[in-house]
């Protein structure tokens, strides 16, 4: 019995590998399966994160919520209207960095609403909707640390969450400017919460992440007044919702919804609800850059 499962598993892996390695035939003419699937099942599966407040997280009531989630719910409404469905059930599926791509490409989730930076490397594998949030890498430090910019990190410990774009950007900056940080490399920890704990305990002197994340963590810290976010941006991180590649109709519907939200001012209202000051008191007013970006993506009809 064991072998038959193992053999089938192996066989499936091989089959899958060969089938998927083959070039997509006739992919040009047809649109992807997401819209069709939504119409048939009358269900939209939204992928979310457990702990990326205030963009995508699980509240104390155990429900998915946040800025990205609210935007995705608007896209769900638009899908219901576009497909003329009498009802559309929205299901929330919690994702982890390990499962999000397998589940998106397997069709278990139709759209991922979290806090992911749109990058070229990732675009090889998935599609991003238009940028709905803009942030960038900065440093979180203790107010009395004397650190004002990345150049001040000589001999200091810098911590970052594993695999984020921030750690990469910080490394580039450190190499470029020849800054000698303590230990020779950035300490990479499991997630932002762990990085913050390293800071609280004095193991690290600076923590780099998207500034919105840093503001959020500082606002939740035991003593928010102890912390400040410093430095000029050393990377820009545009966030967008993620959908499977080759689903032009679905992508168009998503982008159109975002455009309509910008034009009607609803998007700004959603922003205000989550960020000014927001449930976690993050108090992160919309930047000029994001305001301009939103105007730019609100394409004419």
């Amino acid at each position, binding site marked *: 019995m064991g072998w038959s499962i193992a053999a089938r598993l192996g066989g499936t892996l091989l089959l899958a590998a060969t089938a*998927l390695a083959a070039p997509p035939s006739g992919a040009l003419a047809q649109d992807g399966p997401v819209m069709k699937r939504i119409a048939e099942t009358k269900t939209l599966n939204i992928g979310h994160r457990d702990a990326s407040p205030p963009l995508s997280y699980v509240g104390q009531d155990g429900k998915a919520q946040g800025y990205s989630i609210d935007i995705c719910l608007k896209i769900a409404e638009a899908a219901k209207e576009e497909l003329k469905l009498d009802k559309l059930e929205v299901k929330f599926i919690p994702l982890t960095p390990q499962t999000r791509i397998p589940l998106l490409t*397997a069709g278990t989730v139709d759209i991922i609403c979290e806090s992911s930076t749109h990058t070229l490397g990732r675009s090889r594998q998935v599609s991003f909707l238009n940028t709905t949030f803009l942030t960038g890498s900065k440093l979180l430090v203790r107010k009395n640390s004397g650190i004002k910019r990345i150049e001040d990190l000589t001999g200091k410990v810098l911590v970052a969450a*594993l695999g984020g774009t921030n750690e990469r950007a910080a490394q580039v900056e450190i190499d470029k400017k020849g800054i000698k940080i303590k230990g020779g490399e950035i300490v990479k920890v499991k997630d932002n919460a762990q990085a913050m704990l390293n800071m609280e*305990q004095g193991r690290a002197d600076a923590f780099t992440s998207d500034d919105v994340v840093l503001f959020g963590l500082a606002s939740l810290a035991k003593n928010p007044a102890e912390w400040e976010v410093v430095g000029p941006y050393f990377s820009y991180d545009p966030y967008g919702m993620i959908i499977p590649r080759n689903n032009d109709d679905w992508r168009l519907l998503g982008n159109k919804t975002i455009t309509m939200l910008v034009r009607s001012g609803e998007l700004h209202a959603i922003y205000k609800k989550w960020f000014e000051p927001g449930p976690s008191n993050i108090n992160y007013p919309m930047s000029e850059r994001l305001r301009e970006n939103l105007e730019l993506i609100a394409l004419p009809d």
Partner: protein
Amino acid sequence: MGSYRWNWPILLADPYYGWIVSGFGNTCLIAVLAWSIAFPLGSAIGIARTTELRPLRLVGTIYVEVFRNIPLLAQMFLWYFVVPELLPQDWGHWVKRDMPYPQFLTSVLCLGLYTASRVAEQVRSGLEAIPRGQHHAGLAMGLTPAQVYRYVRLPVAYRIIIPSLTSDFLGVFKNSSLALTIGVLELTSQARQIEEYTFAAFEAFATATLLYCAVTGIVILAMRQVERRTRIPGTIAIGAQ
């Protein structure tokens, strides 16, 4: 899976290949170092639990109950974040600021102490599986209790528990993946990092799986030879002959 784009060559591309190699090296190093704590310590505690001395037994029991009953993930965290806070201030400061390779050493220590509790249980159950008569026979022949352990009970006990000790060694190897929670860049965290950079999830995790399987496969094959050679004559045969 229809829209997944395979991209195996990315694993050989510049930074990613080096990440896998260094992650794999760290995983092996953590496992070997942790085992070199776990095996002697676990053996000592396992033996302590079978002696006639009550205080020794008590210490052994407390050790095993505490270390095996708290999830490794939580222990990792307690060692890294909570213990330095409980030390005298100078020591705590040294651990937090001046100790070299803090994440690596903490994870080795944590994994070693955790696994010792499991090794101790194996050793104890091996010792208890031996009929008491052998112990008494050894004493009757004029051996000291220490000699009875050294020449009679332990050689038999270790041979009985080889399969479960193998499991525990593999456990250390695989559990080393939890070191990523405190910031050690071992195999699983490097796979995760590659996934974050490229979204090539299947390739990254398949490579990690294959590397784990390769090492454990080699260990299992080697231990099976050991098991066969050290089989105790007269006990029920092990596996296919």
